[in-house]
């Protein structure tokens, strides 16, 4: 009897602090997003008024919000597609081929993932700089006459692609390492048999590698949705602050702006609630669409 009392005291002491911290700083704020989205709350004064769904109604006729949602969805799609294709190809090369300096390559490819988004944003501002950037000076070499510098971050038509470039640069190494881990568990005999049958490397990639790591790819798709929403916010916040003229605004940067610059917290939280629901729906849809029978070998 004493023993069981001691045991429950022990489990309580071990688990309680983490539950308390988690509840106060993660759970309650998350619930608060949804609660606050129903309020009209005009800033630092304690002036809160329950307004039901009116924030949401306003939201869907807010063109700036719709544009930021479009930008975010566009970034999710393009960053996922490009990153996944590069990461898969490089992972396949590094696991399947015996190359010199393979280890160094793996180490270098992962570097962007350990850098702060702040650092990457500053690096890419230098790369994209219109007058003296690394990219523009290269382009300038090939077009000496009638050449205009490309305003990667200043042109509203290009800026979203520029942000995508930085996000892809940051993500390739991470997903590559992840795919390498599951690719290296594929039995080598399968490739040997394919070689004997005369299947090309490309055919092997599509018929052996891809189907066998499909579950892993599916898991990463959810990661892509969540991390693209977040990283696009951080990159935009540091590199363009949504500009020029709102052209690179993403949902979370718009949320942050509404909350801090406009001090309209209720409205900002309505954006948060929508993003929350959209990201879950998107993950669910992707999960459903990519469902295949698990292939075993």
């Amino acid at each position: 009897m004493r023993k069981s009392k001691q045991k429950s005291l022990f489990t309580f002491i071990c688990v309680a602090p983490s539950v308390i911290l988690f509840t106060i700083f993660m759970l309650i704020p998350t619930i608060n997003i949804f609660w606050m989205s129903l309020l009209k709350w005009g800033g630092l004064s304690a002036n809160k008024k329950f307004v039901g769904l009116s924030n949401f109604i306003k939201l869907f006729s807010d063109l700036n919000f719709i544009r930021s949602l479009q930008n975010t969805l566009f970034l999710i799609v393009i960053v996922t597609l490009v990153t996944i294709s590069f990461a898969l190809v490089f992972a396949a090369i590094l696991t399947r081929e015996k190359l010199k300096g393979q280890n160094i390559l793996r180490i270098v490819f992962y570097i962007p993932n350990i850098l702060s988004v702040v650092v990457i944003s500053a690096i890419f501002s230098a790369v994209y700089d219109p007058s003296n950037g690394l990219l523009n000076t290269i382009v300038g070499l090939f077009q000496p006459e009638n050449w205009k510098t490309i305003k990667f971050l200043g042109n509203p038509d290009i800026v979203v692609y520029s942000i995508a470039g930085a996000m892809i640069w940051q993500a390739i190494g991470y997903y590559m390492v992840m795919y390498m881990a599951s690719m290296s568990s594929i039995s080598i005999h399968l490739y040997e048999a394919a070689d004997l049958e005369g299947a090309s490397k490309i055919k092997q990639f599509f018929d052996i590698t891809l189907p066998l790591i499909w579950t892993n790819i599916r898991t990463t798709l959810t990661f892509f949705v969540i991390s693209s929403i977040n990283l696009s916010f951080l990159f935009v916040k540091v590199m363009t602050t949504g500009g020029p003229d709102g052209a690179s605004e993403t949902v979370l940067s718009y949320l942050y702006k509404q909350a801090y610059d406009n001090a309209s917290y209720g409205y900002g939280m309505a954006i948060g609630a929508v993003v929350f629901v959209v990201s879950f729906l998107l993950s669910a849809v992707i999960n459903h669409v990519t469902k295949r029978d698990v292939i075993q070998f």
Partner: protein
Amino acid sequence: MKKINLYKVFVYVALFSLFISIIIPVAWVFMASIKENAEFYTSPWNLPKGFYFQNFINAFEKAKMGEYFLNSVILTGLSLIILLVVSVPAAYVLARYEFKFKKLINILYMAGLFINVNYIVVPIFLMLLNWDNILYKYLNVEFFLNNIFVLAIIYAATGIPFTIYLLQSYFKTISKSYEDAACIDGCDYFQTMIKIMIPLAKPSIITVILFNFLAFWNEYIIALTMLPNSNKTLPVGVVNLYQASRGKAEYGMLYAGLVIVMLPTLILYILVQRKLTEGMTVGGIKD
């Protein structure tokens, strides 16, 4: 024969392109950090003319990077300690013992993996602001905002789901016979955990420290929001430098600041890179 060569060429070209597109921008920042200001008006591809160390001195003195560096060190260290003290025992108990609400807690932490800090930074800020207002009303002090210790607790809280998830799956792989032996030798629950189980889990604890170190050291948005006054962290300080450098054209100092932010993570990474990339697959991501 010819076809195989073509494939090899493709492989090398692809690898080389990615290699240089990663290494050049990073190396460029290091070069730029020792350039003099006038050099930034010539081609960015020029190598630095000399070793202009003044940039770093300026960054430390004028831009207060030294102070911010210290803040970041304290903040990261403190967050890691709080996180480990809170999470390691919880992960152990969740992996080994049956108790009421265990299932609920597990579900909450699983869901917590998907809660993102960037969404909840505004509600957390408002909550702290509210607490501060109450404190101010009755005690005439402010405590929660602009406080590095409170920020460390928030960081630790945001790291809990991932850390417990990873540690828990490691504890499950450790054989129960260690605990049985300890039980026979008369260790109580606390002793068993601290003397036997935690040392056994060292590899996964190191992985957890690495990942959270990177997350905390590089974190920007929470630090920006919770420390609105002069008490800044390194990433926030660098962004300020970056925004200021556009107007004042003090590029050298900015790149020196960037080097100060990334050097610790780069050194750590090179020392433990194998651990880090292996740790990624331990985290249960592997299917």
